[in-house]
């Protein structure tokens, strides 16, 4: 048996009332529900308040650089596909600094679950605009308001036919936990954008703001219907849909490497007769 206690309880560096606490709880619940042993799970994160999350539970962790968690996750998953690999980071980390990796991970369809704590702001660096901040959002760095249009990660992911695309809300822990379970079980790239308030630096998109707008997608929504998903992906404003938005059966990236059938790519004795054969080709 695995329960949430197996994932430990830690003191965090987050503000009281921050959405991160709820997301952490949802993650632990999802792992326990999936009966995943901590040592079989690898969390990769970047830098930011969200990226600290893996330090607050029991699992293998690689807390790398700002923006670079997806490439690390891709390498680790390729080296050992038996690991359940989960990337946890903020909106700035995942969509800003790591934007190119986000697109590449979708294209590869690597079997990794990306959990983006999307508070529409840079929390750790104290309140600059993030790629998902809304136009006009005023910060110390954007005193005249954000002059750019926000990035729509869900629409981009659906447009690129990402393996699994969902949106959650930190105010709906069980619903979010369910999405995370689906993401982890999905064979291929799963991206879950999690709306979360930042009580210190985002006074626009507050808990109440999200609570009023977020509604669970009805069971009538068919996540395998790309066009329907595309429509849902563009819904943003007075009503914000949460739930599993899109899903397909694309072959996961690792499946392209038959070498992996022989087990993880840990150090092994070199095939010397093959090496000799290769060398002889230079003769």
């Amino acid at each position, binding site marked *: 048996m695995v329960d949430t206690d197996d994932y430990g309880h830690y003191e965090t560096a987050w503000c009281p009332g921050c959405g991160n606490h709820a997301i952490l709880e949802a993650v632990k619940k999802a792992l326990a529900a999936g009966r995943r042993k*901590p*040592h*079989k799970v*690898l969390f*990769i994160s970047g*830098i930011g308040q969200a990226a*600290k999350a893996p*330090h607050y539970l*029991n*699992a*293998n*962790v*690689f*807390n*790398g*650089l700002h923006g*670079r968690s*997806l*490439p*690390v*996750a*891709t*390498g*680790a*998953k*390729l*080296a*050992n596909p*038996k*690991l359940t690999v989960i990337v946890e980071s903020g909106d700035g980390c995942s969509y800003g600094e790591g934007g*190119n*990796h986000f*697109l*590449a991970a979708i294209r590869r369809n690597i079997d990794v679950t990306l959990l983006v704590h999307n508070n529409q702001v840079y929390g750790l660096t104290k309140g600059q605009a993030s790629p998902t901040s809304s136009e006009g959002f005023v910060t110390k760095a954007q005193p005249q308001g954000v002059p750019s249009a926000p990035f729509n990660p869900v629409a981009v992911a659906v447009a690129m036919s990402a393996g699994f695309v969902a949106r959650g809300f930190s105010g709906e822990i069980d619903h979010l936990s369910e999405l995370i379970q689906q993401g982890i079980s999905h064979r291929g790239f799963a991206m879950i954008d999690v709306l979360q308030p930042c009580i210190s630096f985002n006074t626009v998109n507050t808990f109440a703001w999200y609570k009023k707008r977020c509604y669970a997608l009805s069971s009538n929504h068919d996540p395998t219907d790309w066009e329907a998903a595309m429509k849902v992906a563009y819904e943003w404003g007075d009503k914000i849909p949460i739930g599993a938005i899109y899903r397909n059966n694309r072959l996961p990236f690792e499946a392209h*490497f038959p*070498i*992996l059938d*022989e087990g*993880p*790519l*840990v*150090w*092994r*004795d*070199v*095939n*010397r*007769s*093959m*090496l*000799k*054969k*290769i*060398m*002889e080709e*230079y*003769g």
Partner: protein
Amino acid sequence: MRDNTLNILIGGSAGQGLVTLGQLLAKSLVRGGYSIFVTQNYLSRIRGGHNTFAVRAGIEKMIAPRERVDLLVALDSDTVTLHQRDLSSDGLIVLDDDLDIDIDSDLLLKVPFKELAQDRFSNIVALGVAGSLAGLSEDLMAGALEDFLGKKNASLAVENRLALSAAINWSAEHSKPGLKLPTTSNTSRRLMMNGNEAIALGALSAGAMFCAFYPMTPATSINLNLASHAKQMGLIVEQAEDEIAAINMAIGASFAGAPSMVATSGGGFALMVEGVSLAAMTETPLVVVVAQRPGPATGLPTRTEQADLEFVLHAGHGEFPRAVFAPGTVEECFHLTRKAFELAERYQGPIFLLTDQFLADSYRSVIPFDVENLPPLAGCTGTAGMSTYDRYAITESGISPRLLPGMTEHLVVADSDEHTEGGHITEDLTLRRKMVEKRLRKEKGIQAEVIPPVMEGDAGPDQLFVSWGSSEGAVVEAASRLRSEGKRIASLHFSQVWPLIPDQFLAYLEDARQVISVESNANGQLARLIRRETGFEIKKKVLRYDGLPITPESILRELNR
């Protein structure tokens, strides 16, 4: 051919099959028992421009390029214009009789390319003519050609073979003496391999299992070579979306257990720099190959330089130990790549191999490596038994026991933030000090394994050349030429440029009347580093930074100025 070596320079524009011709000629020479040394010089374009492929061949081991040309194979008239002045007095120019060129006909062998090959296989005709002049047998050239073409297109093979025969027969009737290489009794098998191929082979022999890359000349062929052997040898090679992704993927793979490497050039490495620091902080083994080309920025993409020593030495914010190897020969490319993997595993961090375009593309004849009997490198299989586990346990050597995630019940926690022994983020400043010291203690171990520089020549010389990396052979040859003129000369060559251990070389510097640094950069970067580490100032410098490799002649020319 005054020095018993034959220097053949093939010139033409991209798209004329010049590299194929050069490779076939070089291969035939190697199979014929000769030692070869290839220098390739090309432009950053796919068609046109002026490119050269030079093969120096002889019986003794060829260690350096030579500028003076004995046989100039001109696939276009530019080649004649540009290289005529390099021709030795008893040299010869082979060219298409269609090209209208007005020079002393004694130097000229006009070949009816069209007639011999219906204007299609000019490069094969050139092979036949040049090979015949050098004294190579038809069997050797035909064998090299056959192996190159493979079995895919039989009719193409026949046509090529006919062109070769026609050229060889034509040469027999129009023979010019004087360029034939002396017959060799050497029958031991040699391979023809360039620096990048040897790095790839070294990586495979070391047990590399993961490589991610973004293409950049002159490093690309290392990655392509690994990709071509990935299936046979059981490794994964992935073209990443950029160099930042490449190094982070390699770090992820290495963290999970795969011996990993990246290979790039200066610009790509610039993007990887934060990752270097990450490998050091997370103590993740990583081999980084930087194949230099002239900078700054895009520089001269296809030319050579050694101007990234200071960059690689200092790349990555913060303080951490590293080792930087700089192979001087193709053999060293193989062995030092293995050594880099070994150190990366042992000291759990980034280890560098610094090469350049010249060495990357330089084919040489090498004695086959004893791949069946190489000592195995101990990699981490991540299964040591222990009751509790801290990824960054503080130890005397600074090396913490390494486990792999998912391979045991223990949790492996790594962090780019300063961390506790258990790998968790911390701002405990006492612990911070301890962690800095732990990481830096690994430097002691690395220092104990440094490959000493090689001193060659007269003790207490009048002049001592100091060099590193790919210029090794040119310096040794220049020194030996000066010695043969009765001068007291020595050379000191570094194939590991960091860490520097003054005890290994300072006495040599102090014993010489004059020390001269020979480097392919404009500042004398190794000389500066030596001064920083020892206080010894090398005042005289022979520097080359026009994008071309250092040759024995270029050194002697500079000295006489």
